[in-house]
């Protein structure tokens, strides 16, 4: 009788994975998040905490856990911080890089299934998604935010031709080809939708995998007050321009 295949990828695959954790003032959430990453089998050296000019003890807290800490001398914003991680992953020759928010909203238990799907399907980018139809579980965000995400998802579909349900997800697994491209080209603020527009239009194979998202353990969202209005307009334009840039990049490499 044939035995069922092991659903977990072998340990060697996790050794080719760099986990990028962009952080700004996350000293409260890291002591919980980093042990969870150890629990799923990620080596401390493969966890890269990018301290984006925090004013608290984020870097010290991360170092105390034995992980790699890249301390930015000034605050660059999420895009600059994540790109630092991709540059690091590129220099170190990782086959995969996974970006994960430092606030602990993403469950590290989703990493193995994400990696498994990416390897099986040969995805360039695999998004940890809250909104895959028929598989919605966990924290789904507020109704207004879901409406906004739905709009952006539609814009992306029109601009790039592919539907992505959780376009703003900060949990993404990226393969070696796109580690290199993100290392040299990555948007600054609210970068996830814009970079997706660019990647899909440039020919990246992008897929979603359902993940559980938890309520934020500590801190507050950076998109508050009047920012949602700016966010929606800026990101809409960003997706359109990103897709256009992606098509041009695809055309120039063909």
């Amino acid at each position, binding site marked *: 009788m044939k035995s069922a295949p092991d659903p977990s990828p072998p340990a060697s695959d996790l050794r080719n994975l760099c986990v990028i954790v962009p952080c700004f003032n996350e000293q409260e959430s890291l002591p919980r998040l980093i042990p969870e990453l150890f629990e799923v089998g990620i080596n401390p050296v493969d966890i890269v905490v*990018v301290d984006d000019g925090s004013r608290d003890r984020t870097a010290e807290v991360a170092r105390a856990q034995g992980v*790699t*800490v*890249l*301390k*930015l*001398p*000034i605050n*660059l914003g999420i895009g*600059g911080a994540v*790109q*630092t991680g991709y*540059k*690091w992953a590129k*220099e170190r020759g990782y086959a995969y890089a996974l970006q994960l928010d430092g606030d602990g909203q993403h469950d590290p238990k989703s990493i193995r299934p994400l990696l498994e799907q990416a390897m099986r399907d040969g995805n360039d980018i695999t998004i940890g998604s809250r909104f895959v139809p028929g598989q919605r579980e966990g924290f789904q965000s507020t109704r207004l935010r879901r409406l906004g995400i739905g709009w952006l998802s539609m814009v992306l579909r029109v601009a790039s031709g592919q539907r992505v349900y959780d376009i703003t997800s900060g949990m993404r697994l990226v393969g070696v080809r796109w580690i290199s491209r993100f290392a040299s080209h990555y948007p*600054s603020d609210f970068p996830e939708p814009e970079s997706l527009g660019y990647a899909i239009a440039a020919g990246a194979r992008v897929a979603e995998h359902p993940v559980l998202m938890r309520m934020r353990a500590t801190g507050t969202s950076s998109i508050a007050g009047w920012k949602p209005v700016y966010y929606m307009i800026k990101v809409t334009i960003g997706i359109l321009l990103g897709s256009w840039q992606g098509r041009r990049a695809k055309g120039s490499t063909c």
Partner: protein
Amino acid sequence: MLRILFGALMAVLFVFSLRSVLRGTLELRDAFIWILLSVGGLALALFPGLMHLAQLLGFRVESNALLSLGIVALLYLNFLQANLIARLRRDQRSLAQSIAIGSKK
């Protein structure tokens, strides 16, 4: 009277731009556009006949032409500065990332 005031303003701008370069607070390439604008403005103040050219551009009143030219010049300068800031921000981002990554080597 307005012409004298405008000429005086342009002269002040010209002197201020040159002095900034001589004192080293601005590089010549940064002050160049201001020097050019102030010389142009001075020429218009000293030779008002030049403003008749405005009618060739379709302006009925010369002061409207001056105002429009001023707005266009300021928009252009603003755009130049936005470009410069974007370039500096890109360089700053790249530099900060190199420092962060370099400190781990």
